[in-house]
């Protein structure tokens, strides 16, 4: 494969990086006054990258024609599926940001640029076909994310979130790098294909330790138990649009990367990592559900909810079949819609002064003061809990079905039982909004962009979403086939 063909394969990445560099220059010369214009331009650039990615997914690209730069990048349908989810989350996070930051006069022109580079890094992550690509993408995303977490630098909580995320993220990178160096040492290559072949048969102890460390580093990035401790603090402290970004795009990217590493690079050692994934998945489901019970801050609650959801997604990985991978992708798409919806709803909870309300007890009686927001939030919460008529149920169903078909009935049963615990705190939010005495805290108005995002995401997770199941499953199947073709 020659160089220009490789370059045309990574066209979305080139568009994102050149666009980011150009907007950085605009930010430097025009200053913070231009931050809204730069935000709009960033959304357009992400849209352009998405337009370049859609044909790859719809065409179900796979095989040798998708390898760029000697297999370092794998621009197949799987990467395209994950990238589109990332682009959607990145664009929504840009759309809701200006109003939030204007409240503190903290909207800076660098914000959209950093989001662009984070999105670029995640695009590289999900296309990784080599441990080096994996690490480069991961760091590009993480470095931008640390800064975004601390973006409200006058706010102590935001600074704390940024520092915590940075220190723990650096630790996770260290663990990941150590695992990667062991893997490289015992297989003689950083390329996923070569690692896969080299690990066939009995696995040596050193390679096993490498595998465990790599998976541990990735588990940190998807905030799965036992590497989840940073999540509630970072989600609570970060500015809400950034929290929305963290809950969607990096989760998708890290999850897709974990799938690629586990099913492709370590694809012939499924028995070696399956027990780890099963443990991490069940522990995430249970701890995510139990931890959320005592929370009064809605952002912390959603953080635990995301840990819980990651557990359900990993059930599909434990199945280690194309069906499981396809189920994970469907779940991820639904999860992104639910997260975007819930955080947009949180961003719409403002009091009379325009300050943001984050405490759940302040939502009491929301159904009488702001009925539409309350109904949307209720539907999203019920969907997160996986209650049948809503679309969140479909995601859980396909994942459990994949696990059962792979003969993992016990794990699916435990996960279903644990999802009942989770339903408790989602219902509690509904109870506070609908049956408690109104406290009239949430009175602020909202603009059309927030309403549009909220309505669209609620419509997606409502029973209307089932109209999309055929289309969504078809795309997810294409992506999973592409993943397993190499594998």
């Amino acid at each position, binding site marked *: 494969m020659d160089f220009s063909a*490789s370059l045309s394969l*990574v066209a979305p990445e080139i568009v994102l*990086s050149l666009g*980011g*560099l150009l907007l*950085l220059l605009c930010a430097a010369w025009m200053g913070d006054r231009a931050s809204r214009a730069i935000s709009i331009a960033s959304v357009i650039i992400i849209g352009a990258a998405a337009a370049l990615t859609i044909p790859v997914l719809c065409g179900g690209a796979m095989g040798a024609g998708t390898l*760029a*730069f*000697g297999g*370092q*990048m794998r621009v197949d349908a799987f990467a395209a599926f994950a990238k589109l989810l990332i682009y959607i989350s990145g664009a929504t996070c840009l759309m809701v940001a200006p109003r939030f930051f204007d409240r503190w006069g903290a909207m*800076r022109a*660098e914000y959209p*640029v*950093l989001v662009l*580079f984070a999105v*670029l*890094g995640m695009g*590289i992550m999900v296309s990784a076909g080599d441990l*080096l*690509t994996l690490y*480069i*993408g991961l*760091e*590009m995303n993480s*470095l*931008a994310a*640390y*800064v975004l977490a*601390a*973006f409200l*630098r006058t706010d102590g909580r935001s600074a704390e979130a*940024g520092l915590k995320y940075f220190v723990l993220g650096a630790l996770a990178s260290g663990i990941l790098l150590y695992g990667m160096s062991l893997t490289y*040492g*015992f*297989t*003689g*290559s950083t390329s996923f294909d*070569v690692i896969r072949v*080299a690990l066939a048969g009995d696995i040596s102890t050193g390679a096993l330790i490498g595998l465990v460390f790599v998976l541990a580093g990735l588990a940190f990035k998807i905030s799965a138990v036992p590497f989840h401790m940073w999540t509630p603090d970072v989600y609570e402290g970060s500015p809400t649009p950034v929290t929305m970004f963290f809950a969607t795009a990096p989760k998708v990217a890290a999850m897709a990367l974990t799938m690629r590493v586990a099913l492709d690079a370590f694809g012939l050692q499924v028995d070696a990592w399956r027990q780890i994934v099963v443990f991490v998945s069940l522990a995430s489901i249970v701890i995510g559900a139990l931890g959320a019970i005592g929370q009064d801050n809605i952002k912390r609650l959603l953080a635990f909810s995301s840990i819980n959801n990651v557990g359900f997604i990993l059930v599909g990985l434990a199945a280690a079949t194309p069906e499981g991978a396809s189920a994970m992708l469907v779940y991820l798409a639904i999860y992104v819609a639910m997260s975007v919806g819930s955080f947009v709803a949180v961003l719409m909870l403002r009091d009379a002064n325009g300050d943001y309300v984050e405490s759940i007890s302040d939502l009491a009686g929301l159904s009488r003061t702001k009925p539409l927001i309350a109904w949307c939030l209720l539907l999203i919460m019920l969907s997160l809990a996986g209650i049948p008529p809503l679309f969140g149920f479909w995601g859980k169903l396909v994942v459990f079905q994949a696990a059962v078909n792979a003969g993992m009935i016990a794990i699916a049963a435990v996960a279903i039982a644990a999802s009942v615990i989770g339903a408790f705190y989602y219902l509690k939010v509904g109870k506070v909004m609908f049956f408690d005495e109104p406290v009239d805290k949430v009175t602020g108005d909202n603009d059309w962009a927030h309403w549009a995002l909220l309505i669209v995401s609620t419509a997606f997770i409502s029973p209307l979403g089932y109209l999309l199941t055929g289309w969504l499953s078809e795309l997810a199947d294409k992506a999973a086939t592409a993943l397993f073709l190499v594998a």
Partner: protein
Amino acid sequence: MIQVFSFYLFAALTILSAVFVIMSRNPVHSVLWLIMAFFNAAGLMVLVGAEFIAMLLVIVYVGAVAVLFLFVVMMLDIDFAELRAGFVKNFPLGLAIALVLLAELVFGIGAYSAGALEMGHAAAAASPQIDGASNIESIGAVLYGKYLFLFESAGIILLVAMVGAIVLTHRERKDTRGQNIGRQIRRRPQDATVNVRPEVGKGVQL
């Protein structure tokens, strides 16, 4: 033989210095031990035939990073009078370290001239070394050829880090007076000076 001996020497001293980095109470001493650890790591690199990386370690880490650390540490509130008072007491230790470094230099050069250390490696690993070319040429060929995409991406990571550091720390200050070069150049002597003839006993009006 000399390679194996030097390997254990360098490796043991690297670990020992690393332990002292975290054990010593004085941060300046920590940085000095860190430099020692870098030197020994560079020695290890020489042993496996990676001279370029060894040079990088010494130039980049010892030369730039460690000195930067030292500057940062020195901005902390440390009593330097007390520090200097320990010079005579610590002199034997300093001398010992100097002797160890000298011995390492001798062993390192001896081991290097005796050929690189044979290490166990997986059969799949094909060496990207170009025949007859030096370490640096081979690295350059790989970096700007096979790994060009990743190299450029790493550049963007550095840019992101730089932008992040500026975003988080830079603030516009109203009370400082910046330099306006255009205004300075436009300034003419006749605008800047006036000829006044003060009357006796009145003083000068400025």
